């Protein structure tokens, strides 16, 4: 198992105003598995992704990434874990606006300490493979939504992370561009990585090995899910 959550709960606030965004969630994801997390807005999908990423500490419960219990790690260790093991894809692409597509993809490698030359070579190869060879020296503002999301996927996978965490990766794309992005993610999963994708988009279902349904902070059986 690459990811395992045991009784994870996240409560925001306290007393009468306390909100259980995630409530006793347990699940696991194996290597080579693409899991889709579906549920209505406010169901706790994004909070669950944030917890798995180590960006938020759960109120209770345990989360294991590749056998390591991450709730006990320091901020520095969590940053290292994200850099080594996780690639992120966001709904709004979240590229760095002052950097070109190439520099955006190079950035995780640079943070990791890879030499500039090697980072450039790897990023160029990846962008070319993603069909962006002619667009790599453009700033994000000069790229279309589909191109920006492909750059974001390239940035997420350039360090060869074992886990891809994506939040609504197709929400701002038309069906063709959305499918292209999902194909890129699926291809990576086919290489032995894992992915967990939070999405409302029913088109994403066809790419998933398994679907987890979430409502009111809890995972539901498919038949219970409205």
């Amino acid at each position, binding site marked *: 198992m690459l990811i395992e959550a045991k009784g994870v709960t996240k409560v925001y606030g306290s007393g009468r105003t306390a909100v259980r965004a995630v409530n006793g969630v347990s699940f696991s994801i194996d290597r080579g598995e693409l899991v889709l997390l579906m549920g209505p807005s406010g169901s706790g999908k994004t909070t669950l992704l944030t917890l798995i990423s180590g960006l938020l500490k759960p109120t209770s419960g345990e989360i294991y990434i590749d056998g390591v219990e991450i709730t006990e790690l320091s901020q520095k260790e969590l940053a290292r874990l994200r850099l080594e093991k996780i690639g992120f894809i966001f709904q709004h692409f979240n590229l760095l606006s002052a*950097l070109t597509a190439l520099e955006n993809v190079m950035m995780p490698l640079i943070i990791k300490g890879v030499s500039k030359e090697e980072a450039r070579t790897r990023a160029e190869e990846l962008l070319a493979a993603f069909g962006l060879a002619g667009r790599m020296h453009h700033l994000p503002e000069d790229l279309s939504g589909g191109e920006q999301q492909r750059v974001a996927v390239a940035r997420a996978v350039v360090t060869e992370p074992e886990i891809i965490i994506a939040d609504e990766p197709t929400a701002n794309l038309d069906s063709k561009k959305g499918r292209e992005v999902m194909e890129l993610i699926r291809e990576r999963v086919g290489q032995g990585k894992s992915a967990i994708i939070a999405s409302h988009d029913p088109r994403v279902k066809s790419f998933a090995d398994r679907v987890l349904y979430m409502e009111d902070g809890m995972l539901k059986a498919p038949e219970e899910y409205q």
Partner: protein
Amino acid sequence: MVSIARKNLFHDRGRLLISVGGVAFATMLMMTLIGVYYGIFTESTMYLKKTRADLWVGQEGIHDTWHTYSLLPKGLDTEIMQVGGVKEVHEFIGRAVMAEVSKVSESKETVFIIGFDTSSGVGGPWEIIKGKKIPRRGQVVVDRVFAMRKGIDIGDTIKAGGVELTVVGISKDTFVLVYSYAFVTKEDAAEIFGARDFLNYYMVEVENPFFAKKIATNIENRLRARGIKADVLTKQEFIDNHKEVIDESFSVILLPLVLIGFFIGVTVIGLTLYTATLEKIKEYAILKAIGAGEGFMVRIVMEQAFTIGILGFLCGAALSLAAARLVPAVAPEFYVEINSSNLVVSFVAIIAMSIFASLVPIRKLERVDPATVFQA
């Protein structure tokens, strides 16, 4: 490295330009003020440096020519000459007096009259830009700044202590901040001061300056044995005493102004970094989310701070050099000295500015919550 720091900074060139301009202004303010400070030191001690005297013999307890006048009886030169290692002894008669410029009605100004031995020239002007170097009785060599300010030239007259003196020469680098030197014969000086039996200092040349300190002690002892209480100072001690007077008088004025320049620089860099940080706060959260550690974030802010600081320093140094040339043309009494020490002090100040200015933005970045990347 892909410099996100510089990319972010140069992304908004207008703001960068304003920031660099602000730092350049602060640098120029600091460098020019420090330059004025060094300039005052240089100008004020130039006479002592240029005069051929290894030792200054003055009244006991009086250690500079500005505070209180040293008074010694005339005729001690033969006593001093008896001390081993002494080569020559010259008389120095000098003090500040009010002088009237006859060409300009109601125009009075303080000048420091120096009476010197015209036969040896020791204690007199060292560089003349007009006229002659050695005055005769009834003649005076005045300073260039004094001449410019009063609009006087060769052939004009000034009156000091009731003695009328004709200007025969104009000297250079003989201005001491608030007044200028005017050189006359020692006989005229004695008449102006009304002190025929006294003088102010004996200037001593020694055979070997290496033994100056030892000779100074011997002169003191010899004079003391004759009932004369005198202090004998080496040239460097005498210069240092004058520097100390300047330091006491002007550091209290200049230091606050230099500090103002420093704080302007810190504020400009700090505000630029802070607004740049706030503007890109979401992007810093992205960097944290993908695994950038605190060190990486701190380096971004520091690199931005140093980029602004160093660009501002280079522009400010260029402006200061221009100011150093322009200021004397407008205000000849000021000499702005941009030397290596001034450059080093200003550069260190810029580095300090950059570090101080980074503290708040770094603190802001430390608090950035990477979890916000999932928020719309």
